[in-house]
């Protein structure tokens, strides 16, 4: 009888404990749910931040290109026009005619350059024409310096639907890589490949510059360039693979799930 009583009490206690555990599980699940929701919103906010920053950087890069071009190219052309016009001697009509023609030609060239520059000013439109074209425009500007031989290949079939955010980020990554090549690599040849494997988009930038030992790069050098590239690719679920050795150039391979 005593044992049976004990068993009943034990049973009631056991069921009570089980029920309390159930309540605890419900509460813990709620906490996990809210924490997950919060971290998801934080990720989203961080993505929006990076996107905004990327847009800003692309605009800044465009303005820099415009500034350089105004100074180095159009500025020079207009100075030359001015010089040519100033040197006209009216008492020598044949020579004056030649100089006026030369000035007209220089002026037309300036107008052409200005028009190209005007297109670039519409920074947002750079990507509206598509990632492939935006990359091509960027290459055109770099090629104008005459320092680099750039080959650009597009393979595979482009996705029917595009993703403007991912295009923007990939484009900025490419700008960052090209900036690094221009500033640090000492390369003369650059190969850019844009590929559309299934479910993604792959960008490969290869240069024949000095290369570097990734592990030996000081933290501050990794900071702006490589870390930014890595961070941006990760935020859109992508991966970055960097292959480089001293004296053997660099290959940066980025894969981003697409669209």
């Amino acid at each position: 009888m005593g044992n049976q009583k004990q068993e009943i009490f034990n049973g009631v206690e056991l069921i009570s404990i089980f029920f309390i555990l159930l309540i605890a599980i419900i509460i813990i699940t709620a906490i996990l749910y809210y924490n997950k929701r919060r971290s998801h919103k934080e990720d989203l906010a961080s993505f929006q931040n990076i996107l905004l920053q990327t847009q800003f950087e692309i605009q800044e890069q465009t303005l820099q290109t415009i500034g350089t071009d105004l100074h180095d190219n159009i500025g020079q052309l207009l100075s030359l026009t001015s010089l040519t016009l100033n040197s006209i001697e009216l008492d020598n009509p044949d020579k004056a005619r030649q100089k006026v023609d030369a000035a007209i030609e220089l002026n037309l060239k300036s107008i052409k350059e200005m028009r190209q520059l005007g297109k670039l000013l519409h920074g947002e439109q750079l990507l509206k024409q598509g990632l492939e074209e935006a990359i091509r425009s960027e290459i055109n500007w770099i090629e104008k310096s005459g320092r680099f031989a750039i080959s650009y290949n597009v393979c595979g079939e482009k996705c029917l639907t595009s993703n403007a955010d991912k295009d923007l980020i990939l484009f900025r990554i490419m700008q960052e890589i090209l900036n690094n090549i221009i500033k640090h690599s000492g390369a003369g040849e650059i190969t850019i490949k844009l590929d559309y494997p299934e479910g993604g988009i792959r960008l490969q930038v290869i240069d024949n510059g000095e290369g570097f030992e990734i592990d030996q790069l000081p933290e501050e050098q990794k900071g702006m360039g490589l870390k930014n590239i890595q961070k941006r690719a990760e935020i859109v679920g992508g991966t970055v693979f960097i292959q480089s050795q001293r004296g053997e150039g660099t290959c940066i391979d980025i894969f981003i799930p697409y669209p």
Partner: protein
Amino acid sequence: MNILEIYYYSLLTTGTVLAFLLFKKGKKQFIALAILLAITLVKELITSQLPRENYKLSFLITDIFNLLEYTLFSIYFIISCRNIMLKKWVKLSIPLFIIFGAYTSVFIYQFREVPVLNIDLEGFLLLIIYTHLLYNLEIDDNKSIYMHADFWIAIGVMIFFGGAFVFIGLLPIILEQDSVRALSEYGKILQILNYIFYNSIIIGVIWGIRNKKYLMV
């Protein structure tokens, strides 16, 4: 009065004052909590002073208290919740619960025993509506869930009523076996759950006041 009793009454007094302060600061639902905590304090003080022979009066107080407790917790939920449909159901449940509770108290238990059915039905209903409240908190994403008053109120209600649910439901069975031991264990379990419950409510009210302060600044 022993130290635990003093602590228990202090919890109830502090909770009442803080909930009233929060109501004054504009959080309407906390008036329900302030009234409930004040009633609980008065009820506990009266029942602790009643002689054993007066058990009928003690059960009458407990029965009336259950009805008030469900009503006030439901009012708190109705003001806090944003789901209109659920609000309507909870509003409807108040008179139904009062009718049911009054009927069982008068005709079934007749103020001679613990109103197990009433307490368990109350616990079951509050467990459901406060689980809903817990999963539908209006959370500011810059703040942790622990800084939300309703989070603490909801878990306090869930732990108290969920924890007591099975034991109270099975109380008649163990009372038949050994009434002295059953009542002693019932008292112990309720005491522990009460401490968790009122501490949780006070934490919730304190967060409510703190959050309100930040909003006003």
